[in-house]
């Protein structure tokens, strides 16, 4: 895991724009496989900073190093072909089919036809569009969200180690955007590209970034992990920009697994009620979590809700929805706790086996760090 992309005092002054520095001595390093979200108010220089990396905009001073090589020494065309590029307005080629759009870079790189076809197939699968159905369609026959996915697939076709994405989901409605973000993160799990991801939306920056690069008036204000930006905003501008609810936003960064306690009061559903009462008196809990032989959640027993004629735990168990998987976010966890009356939440794995439980105090602990 070396440094893949390094910006060193990168500065851009547009000619004739009153010598204002659109980007002012911007420096940061990005490791291989990381997503860096570049975020800031409109006009702060995000697009300019990004486009200097593939030389769509010429650098005024400073250096950009990719994989140890100064890009000013590389051939522009070759440099661009080694960098995946997704623009805000998608920019699919209307005259080409979806398959041809995706194949464009491999063709420029003179791959053979079999390899190109295979790549197109594979990428369409990755972005969840059935290859046989979509390959021969034209961009104007696709929805905005589908086009955007093709835009991403096209940028990945040449197997570039680096991708630049300028507000790739900016033009998409919130529901589809969330869906695309999740899908993209899943894709990134598989492909592990080094990505510069421009957005004006701080929530998107937090969600998508391994690192956040926060700009203001062309200058770098903070470069850190989302957690750090939310926990320790560098100054009032950052605190303001991430919003007053930044603590709540941090809930999105953690999984339940991280906060839960793994010693829940569990009882087998075939035990007698006496055993349960024993457990109630030994611990100060009001609720017990009932499981079956496999350890799978079957329900919850309320100390004050045991029917008189119950002899087995089974007879006293009330089925419950108060559970989530350990991979869910703390935000969902908190919401779920507040939805039910127990004051806690059962944490389970994929097959509903009980792993632990979660209280609001556990969440507070985790946020404190």
């Amino acid at each position: 895991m070396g440094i893949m992309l390094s910006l060193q005092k990168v500065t851009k002054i547009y000619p004739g724009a009153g010598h204002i520095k659109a980007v002012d001595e911007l420096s940061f390093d990005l490791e291989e496989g990381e997503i860096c979200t570049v975020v800031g108010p409109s006009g702060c220089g995000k697009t300019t900073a990004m486009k200097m990396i593939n030389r769509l905009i010429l650098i005024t001073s400073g250096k950009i190093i990719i994989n140890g090589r100064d890009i000013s020494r590389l051939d522009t065309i070759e440099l661009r072909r080694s960098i995946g590029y997704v623009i805000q307005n998608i920019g699919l080629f209307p005259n080409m089919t979806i398959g041809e759009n995706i194949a464009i870079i491999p063709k420029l790189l003179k791959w053979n036809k079999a390899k190109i076809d295979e790549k197109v197939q594979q990428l369409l699968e990755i972005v969840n569009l059935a290859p046989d159905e979509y390959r021969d369609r034209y961009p104007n026959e696709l929805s905005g969200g589908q086009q955007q996915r093709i835009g991403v697939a096209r940028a990945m076709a040449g197997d570039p180690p680096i991708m630049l994405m300028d507000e790739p989901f900016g033009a998409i409605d919130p529901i589809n955007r969330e869906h695309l973000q999740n899908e993209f993160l899943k894709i990134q799990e598989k492909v592990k590209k080094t990505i510069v991801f421009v957005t004006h939306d701080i929530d998107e920056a937090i969600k998508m970034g391994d690192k956040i690069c926060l700009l203001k008036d062309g200058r770098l204000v903070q470069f850190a992990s989302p957690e750090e930006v939310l926990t320790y905003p560098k100054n009032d501008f950052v605190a303001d920009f991430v919003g007053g609810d930044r603590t709540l936003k941090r809930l999105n960064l953690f999984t339940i697994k991280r906060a839960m306690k793994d010693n829940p009061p569990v009882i087998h559903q075939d035990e007698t009620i006496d055993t349960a009462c024993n457990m109630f008196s030994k611990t100060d809990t009001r609720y017990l979590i009932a499981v079956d032989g496999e350890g799978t959640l079957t329900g919850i027993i309320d100390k004050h809700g045991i029917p008189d004629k119950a002899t087995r735990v089974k007879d006293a168990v009330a089925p419950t929805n108060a559970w989530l998987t350990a991979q869910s976010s703390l935000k969902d966890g908190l919401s779920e706790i507040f939805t039910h009356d127990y004051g806690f939440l059962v944490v389970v794995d994929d097959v509903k086996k009980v792993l632990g439980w979660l209280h609001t105090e556990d969440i507070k602990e985790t946020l404190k760090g």
Partner: protein
Amino acid sequence: MTLRVLLRLVKRLVPVFLTILFIVWLYTYYGAWDYTIKNIPEFFKLVYEHFVLVIISMFCAALVGVSLGTMMTRKSMEKVSSAIMAVVNVWQSVPSLGVIAMAYGFLPLIGLSGIGMVPALIALFLQAVAPIVRNTYAGIDSVSKDVIEAATGMGMTRKQILFQIELPNAMPVIAGGVRTATAIIVGTAPLAFLIGGGGLGFWIFTGIALVDTGIMVAGAVPVALIAMLFDYCLSVSEKFLVSRGVRTNEVKMA
């Protein structure tokens, strides 16, 4: 399903069929058959000349028009192109007969003959090139900036962008220009006779001069058929040249 296709075919073919029927009837009614058969060698010569006029002027106009229109969209030509565009716009409003007359009057001034096939070709060419230049320029200019930026950012060269992106995407508009140009050429070609350019105009004007409708129709009917033939050829070639992804229902006219 097949019935619908058949119905559509019939709907399209019936008007064509009726038109041809009408033309043939006109042809027979005025005794143009007789005149044509009596003068069959001349008929073939005139048809040949007519084709030469139309095809050569069309070919040159398309070649020059698309090249010039494309060049005008290049960044370095920005200043020149608005001037060329102004000329083209004025030029297009000059009526065909005027251009023929001007060729006749002007060419001798620069030491060329004003009579014969060459001046006729030049006049036809000048008429046809304007809409092609105009539409090529407009077509390429209208290709989305995002598309160009994506292509550039992905590492396509200027030439690749021109041939793989800009021209194919501008093709419906360019094709519209070529159609307009063809209509102009086919319509003007009979006038070539007036400056000794040959072609079927000879019979038309002879017929008019002799007040002999038969001779006139013997010239006019093949002219009409040739026009239809060219229009058909164009619509077929458009199917090949214009990608389905950029095809529009309305053909843009210059």
